[in-house]
């Protein structure tokens, strides 16, 4: 269905295999190769100070991956401008190596005047695309282009219970066009279940009303199966999360939780908060998809814009120099243009 780019065969025949060939072994081959190469994942956290960004990211990756946790003499200062800082670590699980980069955005939303506070973030995201594009356009390219592009941007919404604030709308509107945004309700333990549901619904309404596309974007669903899975996710976002790195004993088990006077909020208990949903979405099921959407869609959009801006249209230069058979290929083309 539809035209497949590059396919010149007029007819593709189906052919039945009379017996085992071993084609399915290619799956294993691919698995081994990707494990050997390792994975890169770049996650950005955006939100006002005090919303628990570092804690959440540490909880997600069960490790002190945030800048806060690994910078000695870290002082929580309200910075005067939004400065982006990234920190990378290599984490490994069952032979799978991942270079995880967490990009922090201290200062966002903390000023009295927050106009244009998204600009440094937009700039950063585009800079990574630019870096990648430059590498991709080299004549002599690296075997593997280092990927610093932001694969996922977690946007922290304070648990006000009301509606989206202007800063939320402005930010998500702009960034939603260039990066995959995953909004979360931070410190959700201040909302009851009913309040939470209502808040989520309002947020979804607000998002729709403002034309904001968050991950998983409906337009990028690849097939019916995808749509079913993603529809379910779209109906339950934003996830209401609670983060912690402390463990407590509950019913004889060690659980991650926040201890309060009125009880222990178990982070990984689905009845308490939606942390597990977020973790499953981001890491266990859709991590590769986040990367693919960034590469196949966001990056390509950027690339199209950049190439058009700089008027770089290679076909203008008649790149279709017919190889070897017709040495005058390009000349004849330009003559026909005349």
């Amino acid at each position, binding site marked *: 269905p539809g035209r497949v780019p590059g396919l010149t065969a007029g007819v593709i025949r189906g052919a039945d295999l009379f017996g085992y060939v071993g084609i399915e072994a290619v*799956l294993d081959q691919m698995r081994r190769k990707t494990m050997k190469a390792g994975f890169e994942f770049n996650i950005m956290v955006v939100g006002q100070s005090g919303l628990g960004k570092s804690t959440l990211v540490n909880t997600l990756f069960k490790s002190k991956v945030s800048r806060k946790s690994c910078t000695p003499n870290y002082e929580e200062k309200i910075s005067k401008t939004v400065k982006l800082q990234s920190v990378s670590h290599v984490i490994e699980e069952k032979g799978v190596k991942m270079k995880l980069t967490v990009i922090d955005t201290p200062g966002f939303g903390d000023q009295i005047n927050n106009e244009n506070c998204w600009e440094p973030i937009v700039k950063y995201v585009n800079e990574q695309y630019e870096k990648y594009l430059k590498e991709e356009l080299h004549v*002599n390219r690296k075997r593997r282009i280092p990927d610093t592009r932001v694969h996922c941007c977690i946007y922290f919404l304070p648990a006000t219970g009301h509606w989206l604030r202007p800063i939320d709308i402005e930010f998500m509107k702009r960034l939603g066009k260039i990066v995959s945004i995953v909004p979360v309700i931070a410190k959700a333990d201040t909302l009851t279940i009913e309040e939470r549901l209502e808040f989520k619904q309002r947020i979804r309404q607000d998002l729709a009303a403002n034309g904001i596309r968050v991950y998983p974007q409906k337009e990028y669903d690849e097939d019916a199966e995808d749509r079913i899975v993603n529809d379910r996710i779209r109906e339950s976002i934003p996830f209401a999360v609670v983060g912690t790195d402390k463990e407590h004993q509950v019913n004889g088990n060690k659980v991650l939780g926040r201890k309060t006077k009125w009880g222990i909020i178990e982070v990984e208990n689905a009845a308490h908060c939606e942390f597990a949903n977020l973790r499953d979405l981001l890491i266990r099921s859709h991590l590769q998809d986040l990367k693919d959407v960034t590469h196949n869609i966001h990056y390509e959009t950027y690339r199209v814009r950049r190439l*058009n801006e700089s008027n*770089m249209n290679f076909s203008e230069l008649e790149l279709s120099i017919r190889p070897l058979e017709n040495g005058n290929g390009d000349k004849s083309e330009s003559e026909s243009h*005349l």
Partner: protein
Amino acid sequence: AIEKVEVKKVKFEGVRGLSLSGHVGFDSLPDQLVNKSTCQGFCFNILCIGETGIGKSTLMDTLFNTNFENFESSHFEPQVKLRAQTYDLQESNVRLRLTVVNTVGFGDQMNKQESYQPVVDYIDRQFESYLQEELKIKRSLHNYHDSRVHACLYFISPSGHSLKSLDLVTMKKLDSKVNIIPVIAKADTISKSELHKFKIKIMSELVSNGVQIYQFPLDDETVAKVNTAMNGHLPFAVVGSTEEVCVGNKMVKARQYPWGVVQVENENHCDFVKLREMLICVNMEDLREQTHTRHYELYRRCKLEEMGFKDTDPECKPVSLQQTYEAKRQEFLVELQRREEEMRQMFVQRVKEKEAELKDAERELQSRFEQLKRLHADEKAALEEKRRLLEEDQSSFNKRRAAAQLLQAQSLTANGKKDKDRKK
């Protein structure tokens, strides 16, 4: 000689490692990736080069356990051609889009000097096609049908002696463009001892001629051992057959001769199983990867350099593609303008010439017309003269007639009078 097993360095040098305090779940990443690829399906393209009748189609049928629609080619092709056919195969949940490209008429011509060219052209065309897509502004790479040749099976004639010069020339032209896996075809015509000598001779000839064939990769510990062993068995001596013969109590793929049965999948009889193992079960992904990261990159680099693109200028300062592009574009536009001007001049010139021509023609026509007019006038004058003369003649004749008549009449009356007088 023991091959040194090269272990690729661990990626992500210079980055701190961290230990996890619990199960995070990104160990599912390879599965996520593989699942996506499975949904999309895989492409694999094999090019078979070999003389007509050497068994290329049969081997493909045997390898993939199917019946590709083949038909025998004639030996009288004036030039080497390539025929590509694409098939959709499925095994459990893996969908493979396989393209088999066969040479037609290879080795049949009297003059085989240019035999390799169509093959090189085909391979380059597929690279070109991919490069064009990659350089498009609006491109669609992730669902692009990759037609680049991933593996090239070169069929060596089972002469038992050495490689033909056609073989060496062709393989030399292809070794930097495609993964070459040489196979000895119809290996059931060579005895075991001859085969051993033949293989050694072939490999040494390849080495001494600097032909780089595909080496099964040794960087992954899981398969390094089997790949090392297989590298030592090259070139694979193969026998193909889709017919089944009863051996013992099983039906096996084989060729039945009066003196015995050659079983295709019997490793004592031939290396078919090794070929299938290496080509499909163990290294298909590596073949695809090498094609993309090595052969294609080389093609791309050469192509861009040919067009004048560089990464650094003569002073070794980095040049952005954009700068080079702009420069090229200016060059191109200037050239275009020049050609346009040239054409315009030529056109103006032609117009002038045509105008002159037409003027000449007009003048000639005019003079002819004048001439004709004169002639006409002359003739008219002559005619007028004649008429005048005729009229004169007529009038003088009339006068004479009148005079004669008068005379006659007078003489009659005179005679009548005379007669009257006589009668009296």
